[in-house]
Structure formats: C-alpha cells, structure tokens
C-alpha cells in the first residue's frame, strides 16, 4: 500500500515539499511537478532534507517541467529520477492513492 505524492509549488515559496516529505511513508513516491521541480536541484536549502529521505522514498521529477524551466540536468540532486508524462500516469496507476500537496 503506497502513495504517490505530487508537489507543484516551489519549495522557496511554500512549505509544501518539506511537509510532504515529512509525511511520506517509506515506499512512497514523491513527484515534483510544475514549480515543484525547483526542489530537484542540488545545492539548495532543501537538498539535505530531500537527500535524507532518498533511501526510503522514491524521488521523481517531471522531466518536461524541469526542462521547461531551464534547470541544468547535471545539477539535479543525486537519486532523483526523471519521468515523462507516461511515467506520471504509470506512477498514478501503480500506487494505491495519490495525494496532492497544493
């Protein structure tokens, strides 16, 4: 029984990403979409919090949203998986529920 969490806000604007990873259970997946993808870069003030959960929670970013914002792939935080739209659908279908962190 696992949950797909989506986060669509920049972690520098709201606490949604940090709250999400504080509530996600081991085995869950966190997918950063829209402005949420700003959380996927390394060297930010949320990187450590994400890295701390990377072993127990699958961290993903929606590639098209990441690319759209000109974020450098080589600066993506280690352990984050990039998924495309089909991958998003796959995640939604393979988890028991989806929780949006607005």
């Amino acid at each position, binding site marked *: *029984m696992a*949950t797909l969490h989506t986060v669509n806000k920049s972690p520098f604007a709201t606490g949604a990403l940090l709250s999400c990873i504080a*509530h996600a*259970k081991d085995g*869950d997946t966190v997918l950063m979409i829209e402005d949420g993808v700003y959380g996927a870069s390394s060297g930010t003030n949320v990187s450590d919090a994400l890295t701390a959960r990377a072993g127990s929670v699958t961290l993903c970013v929606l590639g098209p949203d990441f690319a759209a914002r000109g974020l450098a792939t080589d600066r993506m935080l280690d352990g984050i998986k990039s998924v495309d739209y089909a991958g998003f659908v796959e995640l939604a279908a393979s988890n028991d529920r*989806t*929780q*949006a*962190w607005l």
Partner: protein
Amino acid sequence: MSEDIKKFLYVNRKAPYGTIYALESLEVVLIGAAFDQDVSLAFLDDGVFQLTKGQDTKEIGVKNFSPTFRALGDYEVTKLFVERESLDERGLSADDLQDIVWEDEDDDYAEKPSIRIISRAEMADIMADQDVILSF
C-alpha cells in the same frame, strides 16, 4: 452496502481567508457527507488556522465560515485530526481552537470531542490508511 464505504480524507493545509481553498474544502465536505462514506478531516500546516476561536470577518466583507465546523457532527463528520507540530510551530495550542463536538447516538447522545490532536507521525499513518485523499 458496507463494502461500498470508502475512507475519504480531506487534507486542509491553507489558512482560512487569504485564499478560497478552506471554504471550498468545507463545501465539498458538506456535499460529500450525503454519500455515507467514512470521512475524516486533516488539519496541518496553515490549515490549523481554520479552526481557531474568535474569528470575526465583519470588516473584511467575507463570510465567517468557522462556525460551520461545529455543524459537521450533524452530518456524521466526527473526526477532525489536527497536527500537534503544526500548532506548535504557529504558537497555538488546543485551547486556541474551537470546541467542536458531536452527539453519539449510541451513547445516549453524549457530546464527544471531534477534534483529535495527533502527532505528525500519526498524521502520516492516517494519510496512508485512506482510499481517497482530497487536498485543499
């Protein structure tokens, strides 16, 4: 019928008047209450501000919907989970929240508290135990 009952959790993470999320959530809860599901409400992050006592919106020209939370018991919505860490971070305690009760018809209509203060870890467990999560 019982196999058709699903666990619904309404997650409230926004303060009440700056955006429409809180009011919309309450409206959906009231509408959803007609469907006889197992409903819980979660209040965390700025969502805990929705339940504070003493809200007075007379001079901002919007409806004070906070008394409506006290009517939820009549719709068999009796589980309002409030995260302790979110209260602490905002300098609030349970005493700052409205008294919200429901009448237990199986217990001589005794009034019982609807608000349950729980830890962040317990909140995570409740979220993981749902069939459907609606986020606001």
